[in-house]
């Protein structure tokens, strides 16, 4: 496993950005970003809040289209993609949103199952897989709970479970430990590291320098939209 990743790492980048700029009105959230990320890397995007970390992630999964510049994800040029293909682009990613983005009217189980349902998996398979992922985040017995009845840490874990379940190539995690106590943060990070050990690419946006110091990974430092 590790062998294979190390070989790939020296080959083609899975994500490339060339001269990417993002404007909000007259405000420049990102300026002339160039970066390459290789398959199997563990990446930190750090910087103070307002630096443009979330914006950078958003451009990758086409939450927004970049104002300027080119982005390649796994060989796909995002400025050329037809809107029909966007769902398939997004399936390359597992995304842990800063605000979790769990559907409050659906149970924990249904929130996670949604990813597999959208791909078109069989019910039996979904059942098994969701239960196993829930077990791995230690929330097996909460599968019938609704997100708002869970603590922040639990919701965060559900968000990670949902990000992992579709076997994505890349996980994008936006402040995945943002409002958590040290213990919960640790559990979440262990999940991300496990995904990474199995060959996945992880990109974590965080302003928490302590977290970065404690973990291995390549770091991009963003400030005022500049790397």
């Amino acid at each position, binding site marked *: 496993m590790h062998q294979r990743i190390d070989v790939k790492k020296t080959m083609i980048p899975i994500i490339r950005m060339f001269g990417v700029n993002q404007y909000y009105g007259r405000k420049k959230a990102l300026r002339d970003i160039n970066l390459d990320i290789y398959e199997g890397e563990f990446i930190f995007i750090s910087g103070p809040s307002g630096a443009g970390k979330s914006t950078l992630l958003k451009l990758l999964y086409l939450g927004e*289209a970049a104002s300027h510049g080119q982005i390649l994800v796994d060989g796909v040029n995002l400025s050329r993609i037809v*809107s029909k293909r966007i769902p398939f682009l*997004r399936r390359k990613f597992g*995304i842990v949103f800063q605000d979790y983005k*769990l*559907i409050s009217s659906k149970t924990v189980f249904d929130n996670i199952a949604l990813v597999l*349902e*959208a791909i078109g998996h069989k019910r039996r398979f979904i059942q098994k897989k969701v239960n196993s992922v829930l077990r791995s985040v230690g929330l097996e017995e909460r599968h019938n709970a609704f997100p708002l009845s869970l603590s922040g840490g639990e919701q965060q874990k559900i968000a990670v479970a949902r990000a992992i379940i*579709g076997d994505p190539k890349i996980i994008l995690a936006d402040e995945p430990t943002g409002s958590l106590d040290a213990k919960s943060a640790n559990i979440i990070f262990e999940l991300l590291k496990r995904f990474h050990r199995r060959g996945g690419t992880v990109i974590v946006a965080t302003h928490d320098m302590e977290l970065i110091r404690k973990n291995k990974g390549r770091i991009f430092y963003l400030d005022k939209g500049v790397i």
Partner: protein
Amino acid sequence: MIILFLRRAVKDLIKNRFLNAITVITIALSVLIVSAFILFFININDIIDSWKKGIRIMAYLKSDVSPIEPENIEKKIKLMDGVIKTRFISKHDALIQLQTQMKRQSSLFTTLKENPLPDAFEIRMIREAVNNEKIERLAKQIEALPSVDEVEYGQSWVGHYINIIHLFKLTGYALSGLFFIAAIFIVANTIRLVLYSRQEEVEIMRLVGAEDRFIKAPLYIEGIILGALGGIIGMLALYMTFFYISSNMERHLISGFFNIRFFPTEISCGLVLCSTFVGWLGCFLSLRQFLAKNNRI
């Protein structure tokens, strides 16, 4: 996949049961009103038709015409515009008919030395010719024939109502159209409300890689179920109303004059299909608007 969509649709229908119940009731009412109009006109048409079939002109001949004259007259009448059939009733036949009709007073006839009845023609018209003006014109034409003594035509009172019935029909079409459109908008609105209440959910589905059709399919199923349910309920309500009225009419012995009938099965099914289509269309309209507005890329 379809089972999943169906399950999701039913779940949503139950979750928003109040809104959906109102939608179904509104569709049912629209169907009820539209189909009641159609039913009414089908029956009115039946009545008009049977009346049109029944109407005839009687032409009585002068008593002194030669024996071959009736044949000439028949030829002339047959050539007139709008005439479909003529029947000669000789004075002899007429007398026999009268006698059978008045068996009890048969003594009345025994005193007769001579048949006092004239020869006559019964003239029937093609349907299109059955309206007051045309009947009158035809009657005048026949009356103008030298051997014709007198012309008689009855039941012309119905003719006066035909225009009113036509007006009524037009109103019916207009109202039906109105209710059809209203039903579409109501369904569209329901689905729109459902969509807006789930805007966040739709956005999240898209972010985790759901295609639009995955989001749309359950909503289409919901729209179709709402439409079909409304159609069936409206139809049942109409049938019950019809059953109530027609059994009442039988009791009052009006039914002897004309038979009223319910839709044939095809039309009932057609109307339910129509309202199902309305459900689909409402869904289509609101989805198109919603997804276009929420597609930021």
